């Protein structure tokens, strides 16, 4: 076989050492040709990398940013740790669970349940005018709560649950089907329909107004049937585990190594060119950069039809408090709220849509040994208009962030105790922030509206993983990388 095994086997013939483009002496000796180059060191890229490295395929992950994680990253600011993206890990399952996406993922990556250190949520709710549906990781209790809140809809709701249970969402050959249409066949109260859609859209829909029923089922199972968990140390627990495992298996990871072009020869991907001009040959390229973003890298071989990028993005304000939220009377993990009768999930005309949102408290999980986070945190998230935030001149950007942060908080205060006297620090991100750190067009969080479930592109040997392949969420993105590696790179 071409390339060389990292874990064992003789060294490959190498070219001259190459500079790493940062002014330091050359230290990187790439093999003549990798089996696979992976673009992006987020969850999907790292998980794919682990599969490849485990089976001794020479693999290199290239990440433009200075750190790993992509849409689910972490950073430190003014002495505190912050998570990007992760409110909670959905598809939570307790240790010993043998079925389901989390168990599958751990087996495929040869990790143990403890490696992610997940603790279950305390409890969450969906709140609309006049109705509140609490839920936690006990699905039966959620069903009962729905039936109590909407007694006329109880029969229809239970039929819907049976339909969802019977649906095979893992069949990648599905024809799209409107979730709203299927819901309306079972349940007649539009508010109940919106209350079911609200958390699922907020946590995993790339399209406005409606969802594909297949995606609805995936999200329904991951949010309501399974539930939420969180590592005590946040997303870094998962990311550091993935990177350590990947490197131990012989995988290479290069930060600050952006890709500016994917080389295509006769319709087949043959390697990449870095921002500094270094060329790297590979038999395959797996990209988590996004479909449209990836197609721009194959300039010499454009796709047969234009590819649309994602457009749904969010503002998020993270408030640090001088005490635990529970000390203020706020015990809930996540609150999904909508202050109008209808729920509108779409890119707003206004800079932010404060009529709805998510309130997340990372403190409110059942951590082991009654451990508590050092500080109190409340994160408020709302749909945002990407074009507005991208196009603001700098001197208007920061005041606008502050102003909309205020409005988001004002709206959220209908649902939580007044945290304002207890705020000691605030950080706010917008679609512009997301675009800056992940490269995803318009700061799209859930990728393009049209998913490429098979991961194949118009170029042989070039595959997609991550949000545009279509498995969303923390667990979903790792499964995306694993599935694409299994289907295209390991057979």
């Amino acid at each position, binding site marked *: 076989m071409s390339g060389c095994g990292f874990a064992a086997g003789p060294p490959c013939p190498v070219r001259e050492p190459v500079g790493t483009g940062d002014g330091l002496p050359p230290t990187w000796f790439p093999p003549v040709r990798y089996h696979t180059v992976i673009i992006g060191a987020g969850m999907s890229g790292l998980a794919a990398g682990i599969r490849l490295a485990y089976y001794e395929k020479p693999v290199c992950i290239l990440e433009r940013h200075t750190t790993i994680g992509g849409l689910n990253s972490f950073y430190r600011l003014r002495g505190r740790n912050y998570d990007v993206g992760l409110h909670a890990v959905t598809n939570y399952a307790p240790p010993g669970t*043998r079925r389901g996406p989390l168990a599958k993922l751990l087996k495929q990556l040869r990790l143990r349940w403890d490696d992610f250190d997940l603790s279950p949520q305390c409890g969450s709710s969906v709140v609309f005018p006049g109705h509140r549906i609490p839920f936690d990781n006990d699905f039966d209790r959620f069903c009962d709560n729905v039936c109590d809140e909407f007694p006329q809809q109880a029969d229809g709701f239970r039929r819907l649950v049976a339909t969802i249970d019977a649906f095979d969402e893992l069949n990648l050959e599905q024809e799209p089907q409107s979730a709203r249409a299927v819901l309306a066949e079972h349940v007649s109260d539009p508010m109940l329909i919106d209350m079911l859609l609200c958390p699922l859209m907020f946590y995993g829909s790339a399209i406005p107004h409606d969802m594909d029923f297949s995606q609805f089922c995936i999200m329904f199972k991951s949010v309501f049937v399974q539930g939420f968990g969180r590592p005590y140390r946040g997303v870094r627990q998962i990311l550091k585990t993935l990177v350590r495992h990947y490197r131990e298996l012989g995988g290479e990871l290069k930060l600050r190594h952006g890709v500016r072009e994917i080389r295509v020869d006769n319709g087949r991907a043959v390697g990449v060119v870095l921002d500094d001009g270094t060329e790297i040959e590979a038999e395959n390229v797996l990209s988590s950069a996004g479909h449209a973003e990836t197609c721009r890298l194959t300039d010499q071989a454009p796709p047969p039809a234009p590819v649309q990028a994602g457009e749904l993005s969010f503002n998020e304000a993270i408030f640090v408090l001088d005490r635990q939220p529970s000390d203020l009377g706020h015990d809930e993990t996540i609150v999904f709220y909508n202050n109008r009768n209808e729920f509108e999930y779409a890119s707003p005309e206004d800079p932010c849509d404060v009529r709805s949102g998510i309130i997340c408290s990372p403190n409110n999980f059942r951590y082991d040994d009654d451990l508590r986070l050092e500080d109190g945190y409340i994160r408020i998230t709302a749909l945002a208009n990407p074009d507005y935030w991208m196009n603001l001149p700098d001197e208007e950007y920061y005041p606008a962030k502050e102003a909309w942060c205020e409005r988001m908080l004002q709206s959220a205060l209908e649902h939580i105790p007044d945290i304002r006297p207890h705020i000691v620090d605030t950080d706010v991100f917008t679609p512009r922030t997301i675009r800056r750190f992940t490269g995803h067009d318009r700061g799209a969080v859930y990728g393009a509206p049209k998913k490429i479930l098979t991961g194949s592109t118009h170029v042989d040997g070039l595959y997609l993983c991550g949000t545009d392949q279509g498995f969303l969420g923390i667990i979903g993105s790792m499964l995306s990388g*694993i599935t694409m590696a*299994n289907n295209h790179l*390991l*057979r």
Partner: protein
Amino acid sequence: MAPADIRQVVLDILERIAPDEDLSSLDDSVPFREQMELDSMDFLDIVMELRKQYRIQIPESDYEHLVTMDSTVAYLTPLLKDAPAPA
């Protein structure tokens, strides 16, 4: 490698792929999928582990032979006849 050793190789691989399963009472004549939580991803792993450890290639058209322990051992016997037994 003798059939008994091949059986052990397969058991070791199953343990690595599905560490939570109890393999002590495995029935060799019953399909794996009826006794354990195994899907097509896991079957790919069995094939990949064999390739990694013993450098043998199993074409997709032969996957049907890996249904039970008995059929798997029978299929692998000629492929692994020259391989050393696991330590």
